[in-house]
């Protein structure tokens, strides 16, 4: 039971990040290597705002700030370079992640910033017969709530329908009258805001330190590749797979199981290059 909850906590963070990555890939055709750095910015901003006025305001303010950052990213980089190839954009965003990472070190220094859970959530709650840290339950709640919110938005609203249409076939969607530029701004902002939420939530859960973006971006990219590039549902499912392998494997099998997700990604991509939930052929 405990490991299921641990897996859910991890899966909540993974889905927040990979859903954002999948959205940006679907709409903008960009493998955003800077997403890990944005998550780190979210964590540091969450740390600063949290110290100044508290955790709860931070959970609202930081995503908004990050959404504004997303708008800058969209107008400053993604839109002017919309014609570039997906690999070139991967390299450019990788360069961007180096810049952001270094700016963070400039501002905050290279030390780890420990962060306590907000007041009232420091203890543990009894759930399904086990005592579990309340804060982690909050991560599960907010993380999965936000992601399922997006899932519902995509599934049952008109704008969501347009986003899905563009992800699946941009040209046809444009011919049918979908304004892809406006959707692009919306989706990039949403994606960076999600990175912000993930960062704020991760602060008290993992240590806030300059390397935190690097370790999670690789996993998130592999998650969206496994789930199918651009597929939100696939990203949610693949996050669960990675989180489960990270928590159950080490506990119940040998530690060799840490390799399983990578083997799975490689195997799936070879057999089915579009990923498990992908509809579009990877190009």
């Amino acid at each position, binding site marked *: 039971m405990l490991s299921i909850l641990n897996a859910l906590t991890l899966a909540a963070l993974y889905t927040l990040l990979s859903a954002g990555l999948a959205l940006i890939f679907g709409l903008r055709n960009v493998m955003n290597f800077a997403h890990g750095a944005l998550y780190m910015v979210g964590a540091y901003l969450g740390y600063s705002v949290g110290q100044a006025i508290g955790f709860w305001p931070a959970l609202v303010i930081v995503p908004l700030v990050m959404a504004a950052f997303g708008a800058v990213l969209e107008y400053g980089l993604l839109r002017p370079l919309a014609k570039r190839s997906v690999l070139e954009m991967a390299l450019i965003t990788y360069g*961007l992640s*180096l810049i952001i990472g270094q700016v963070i070190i400039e501002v905050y220094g290279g030390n780890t910033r420990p962060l306590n859970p907000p007041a009232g959530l420091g203890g543990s709650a009894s759930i399904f017969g086990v005592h579990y840290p309340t804060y982690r339950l909050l991560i599960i709640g907010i993380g999965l709530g936000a992601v399922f919110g997006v899932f519902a938005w995509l599934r049952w609203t008109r704008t969501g329908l347009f986003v899905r249409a563009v992800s699946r076939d941009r040209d046809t969607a444009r011919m049918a009258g979908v304004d892809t530029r406006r959707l692009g701004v919306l989706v990039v902002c949403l994606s960076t805001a999600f990175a912000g939420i993930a960062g704020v939530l991760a602060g008290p859960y993992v240590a806030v330190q300059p390397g935190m973006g690097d370790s999670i971006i690789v996993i998130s990219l592999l998650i969206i*590749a496994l789930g199918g590039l651009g597929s939100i549902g696939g990203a949610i499912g693949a996050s669960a797979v990675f989180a489960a392998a990270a928590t159950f494997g080490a506990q119940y099998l040998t530690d060799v199981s840490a390799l399983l997700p990578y083997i799975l990604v490689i195997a799936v991509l070879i057999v089915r290059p579009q990923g498990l939930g992908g509809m579009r052929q990877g190009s």
Partner: protein
Amino acid sequence: MTTPRLKVSQRSRPSEELAADRRAASWRLRLGVAAVVMALGYLVPSAVGSVSTMTVLFNGIVLGLMALSVGFLLNTLGWVTFGAAAFSGGAAYIFGILCVSHGTAVLPSAISAVLVATVASLLIGLIFVRSKALVFTILTLALGQMVLQLVSLDSLSNTTGGSNGLVVNYHGSFLGLSSAALAKPGQFWYVAWTLVMLAVIAVIIISTSRLGRLLRGIRENEPRLQHSGYDTYWPKVLAFGFAGLLGAVAGVLQAMSIAFVSTDLLTFGASGTAIVAALIGGYRSPYGPVIGGVLLTYGENFFGSSGNLFLYTGIGIVVVLVAFPGGIADLAGMLWRLGVTRVRARPAGGR
């Protein structure tokens, strides 16, 4: 029906021969330049007095060799690999483990490490090269992380040293160099420089050969080559295997010079640094990645304390990719070609 075809081929033959002549001439010119550069490189240790500069240059060309492996795939096939560290770091670990756990002498350890990594790279290539460019990138990313995880496994920590890394003790000498000499970049330089330049020359030969033209053709339009009856699978496997070989040599050189291997060699950052070096130096020229490796290592040394290197390289990458997609060496090449075509264009224009 045969007459017109004959006519066409007769008419086109002279220009084809001309093109072949020009190719051969440029091939000889490029090899000549490489030979001169190689010869000049041997003078470096005597010209450079300080040990710290020599260390920077040594580490720079080793990083450059790894970057060359990345740049080669990027240039010939248009593929981005985020798993370069799997081959360089992997070979470094094989070398270290052979030296430490099996007590193998340095030279056989080094040769076996390069061989194993190259064969592994060919075998992995058999599977990976079937994928399209973007999927290929993700596969290399997954491979890199998998090798990192494999080395970090607790159950293997007796062999790999786990997160503490592995201090490599040498047995025997390497091409006349004792373990003390290997630690001195001024003495190890000659071996490393030879290998790096051999790699550069190999890249020149491959890119001017039929294989190189096939690979560029695959980059531009693979289905069209397939329809024209070319086999596109094996050239890609060979290219991937060759890139693995270059990475493996770089990894073993690095492990040998510092007598230590750690998981840092296998991280996402390590693969990323090789990409950065290839992009900064310019991946379209075989010298570019090596120049980039030296520049990056120099920068790391120069900015060491303030740590601003990655701010500048990040800005550098974004600017270079946005403005000049080929990097510094391409800029130089562009200026050079501009000059050459002007000179050549004059008689053609007068006709």
